[in-house]
């Protein structure tokens, strides 16, 4: 049965006012119109799996979002709870027989909520500090990175841990602290704005270095550059690029999202291909058009920008790459980052790359494309749910693997936390890192040991 309920009710259609949505850029009717309430999305949803509550399911959330538009509900805290407890993992879109864009609706609804009910007090401060104060500013992030590097290298970390000073932090932050990656210097500082290909140039690409990525995971950026240049790509790193804005849009700050999007669209104006090695950023950048629905000029620019954005694994897979010859004897499993598998439909490419590395043995992870609970800053805002989701995820990680590979830094941190918290011992790696190591090993000759250490 699929008769859409909107048209059955007696009230006049609310398209002119969109019911109780009072701000511009509300959730779009066309996005929920195809939902026939069939429920195929339920089992794909991590929060439904944990709670069994339908308002915490994709179908339920879509229904509530629609109910506000129909004037049956108000934008208030009861509505905000299910909307903000969504991990934005997009698994429901994959499960949906008619591709309802639940993620898009959620983001639009969050925009309405944040405008109707601005954050207050402590939460506001933290939110503003990170989303406005830090992520968009490379230098500030770098400063934090430097501070962290100091914290880690100086022995302060040890002191803090030893003196139990750490116990003054909330539990979930304490856990995050414990898995903080070792901060290295970022590629922005290290490289020129154009890195030439090894040998003949076949393609020219631009790289999104990312905000967090380049501070906490600069080695992945390095690996990305090495792999690209080795395969005949000139890599350009536009200096005026900025944070992709995903975290802002997830948090309902669409205005900031637009600002960052514009800056990136401009920064990459001349690029033919924009390579992204963080699934979350890639997915966001492939959806910039959504932010400019009522701005024809920027909409057009966003459209042509989206076309250029491609995940590193898909790019390598599509344009071809040299198969490494050195053996990298290891048993690994692959975790599908939500924004890669569900968000961009990239599933097989990274697996193929891993399988092309001699000696790599892939072990199937059940429900590999279920969310790990990281979801941007979700693990900071909804620690209990994030932890429950992580626990389910870890139960599916096969026992006998040495590494878990994936394509998103947020997942990497969360999975590292999972490994530590649940007494596992897998190393967390980015797909492109493994390929890089295999190349390195090949260059060093096979006499050297494993590059894992």
């Amino acid at each position, binding site marked *: *049965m*699929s*008769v*859409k*309920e*909107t*048209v*059955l009710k007696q009230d006049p259609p609310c398209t002119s006012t969109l019911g109780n949505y009072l701000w511009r850029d509300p959730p779009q009717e066309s996005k929920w*119109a*195809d939902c*026939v*309430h*069939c*429920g*195929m*999305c*339920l*089992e794909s949803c991590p929060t439904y799996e*944990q*709670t*069994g*509550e*339908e*308002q915490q*399911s994709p*179908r*339920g959330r879509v*229904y*509530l979002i629609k*109910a506000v538009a129909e004037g*049956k*509900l108000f934008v*208030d805290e*009861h*509505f905000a*709870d*299910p909307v903000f407890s969504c991990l934005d993992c997009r698994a429901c879109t994959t*499960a949906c*027989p*008619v*591709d309802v864009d639940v993620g898009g609706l959620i983001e639009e609804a969050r925009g309405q909520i944040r405008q109707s009910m601005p954050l207050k007090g402590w939460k506001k401060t933290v939110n503003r500090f990170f989303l406005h104060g830090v992520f968009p500013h490379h230098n500030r992030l770098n400063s934090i990175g430097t501070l962290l590097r100091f914290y880690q290298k100086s022995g302060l970390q040890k002191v803090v841990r030893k003196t139990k000073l750490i116990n003054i932090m909330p539990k979930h932050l304490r856990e995050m602290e414990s898995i903080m990656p070792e901060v290295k210097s970022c590629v922005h500082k290290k490289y020129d704005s154009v890195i030439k290909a090894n040998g003949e140039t076949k393609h020219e690409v631009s790289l999104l270095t990312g905000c967090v990525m380049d501070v906490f995971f600069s080695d992945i950026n390095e690996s990305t550059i090495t792999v690209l240049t080795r395969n005949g790509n000139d890599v350009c790193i536009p200096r005026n690029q900025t944070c992709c804005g995903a975290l802002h849009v997830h948090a309902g700050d669409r205005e900031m999202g637009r600002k960052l999007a514009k800056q990136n669209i401009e920064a990459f104006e001349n690029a033919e291909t924009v390579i992204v090695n963080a699934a979350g950023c890639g997915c966001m950048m492939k959806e910039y058009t959504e932010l400019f629905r009522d701005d024809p000029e920027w909409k057009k620019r966003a459209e042509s920008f989206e076309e250029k954005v491609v995940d590193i694994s898909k790019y390598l897979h599509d344009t071809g790459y040299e198969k490494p010859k050195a053996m990298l004897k290891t048993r690994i499993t692959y975790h599908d980052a939500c924004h890669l598998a569900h968000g961009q439909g990239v599933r097989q490419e990274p697996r193929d790359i891993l399988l092309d590395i001699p000696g790599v043995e892939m072990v199937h992870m059940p429900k590999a494309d279920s969310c790990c609970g990281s979801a941007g800053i979700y693990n900071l805002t909804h620690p*209990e*749910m994030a932890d*429950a989701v992580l626990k389910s995820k870890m139960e599916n990680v096969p026992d006998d693997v040495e590494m878990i590979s994936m394509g998103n830094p947020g997942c990497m941190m969360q999975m590292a936390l999972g490994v530590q918290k649940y007494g596992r011992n897998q190393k967390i790696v980015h797909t492109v890192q493994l390929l890089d190591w295999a190349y390195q090993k090949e260059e060093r000759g096979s006499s050297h040991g494993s590059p894992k250490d």
Partner: protein
Amino acid sequence: MAVLKINTTDKHIINLANIVDGPRTILYKKADLLAYDCDGFTIHKHLPKAVVFPKSTEEVSKLVKYCSDNGLPFLARGAGTGLSGGAIPINGEVIISMVRMKKLISIDLANRRAVVEPGFVNLKLTNSISDKGYYYAPDPSSQYCCTIGGNVAENAGGAHCLKYGVTTNHILGLEVVLPNGEIVEIGRNGVLDEPGYDLLGLITGSEGTLGIVTKITVRILKNPEGKQTVLAYFDKVEDGSQAVSDIISAGIVPAALEMMDKIAIEAVEAAAFPVGHPKDIEAVLLIEVDGIAAGIEEQVNQILEVCRKRNVREVRAAKDEAERERWWANRKTGFGAMGAISPDYLVQDGVIPRSKLPEVLSKISQISKVSGLRIANIFHAGDGNLHPLVLFDARKPGEIDKALEAGSACLKACADVGGTITGEHGVGIEKREEMRFVFKDEEIRAQTNIREVFNPNNLLNAGKLFPTPGRCVEIKKELKSLS
């Protein structure tokens, strides 16, 4: 996931919440309840009084007893994927959600059975045993998310029930909380033919009106050794229908035998999984046989031969598993695919004797002409289970009613040739009135009499399954205007 702070003066809400152990055991605020005002059938809606989430049979029993003692209407709900409205709280029921009772309690491969809690998802059972070569047969297309408890309530079917039967043929035992809170065990240890009336058979398919199932023992089957799928294109629907009959009467028992007509083909080809069916054919058949590999080739050859005799344009067996999967994906997303060619659709669920297929199909096309609405047909042809999909645009005034009337007329056409009004979706609230197409008043009374034995106060899922007295005349009038 924080502990729920109950902020209400309603003593029933507080008392119900206290029955169940643990955090977040009850929903009672409007924003939360709204998600429960309908299921997969969205025409009727009503808010429940509350939604409670028990985790054990004892808690279900206490909740039921509380509702019963206090005159509160109540009903059980699983994933809410039902297509006939069986889980819609039309009386403002307290919904007892079974989704947190989702354990796989035990698997006994040697004795071919598994015990599950009602909230356990259908497909998960097959997934839990497939590596050992076993599966659970009933495969409704919602199997990815529907619960086995809900399957029991609706006696769910699926594409492969032609050979292996529907849910009722696979249930060995049930633990049931009766509407007074009493717990009874039927089919203890899953032993067949327990002395007494066959309550297992009676409760399965009773659409949650006789009791709430809290534990289920199901039969599991061994995977067949071999499997082959054949695809056949026909220029005439009659030839396709005849081929269906011929295949069956040739002594072949296919695992599945599916048919789509021209409009349905147009839709699936425009949707997510096109396979390149020719646009100008009138019918496509999908025939799957399974069993001992040594016997399959012979059956496939026979099927090819039968189809050729019926003027098939093209017929062939799948060349590999990938092709087979593509054909099935194309078929299984059939309902959703209607979105590609129509803004709205209404799916019906009539069953007819196979031999009446040509007659009923022409009747349906007549209904389509009279109503001015296109009707696509996707059906489990092997067991005569038709799913006419009435295509309409709800934005046009009056089209919903027209579609409902056309749907009802399709069911009447099925009933008139000795068929029935529902093969697998259930009556729920959707087809209550159409029950009169197949049952006389005293036959309906014979059934409500049985309900009274279990559910004397009719607090459990009232208003479902049976027609409301006095609506008969209206329905007849509606139908007259169509035919």
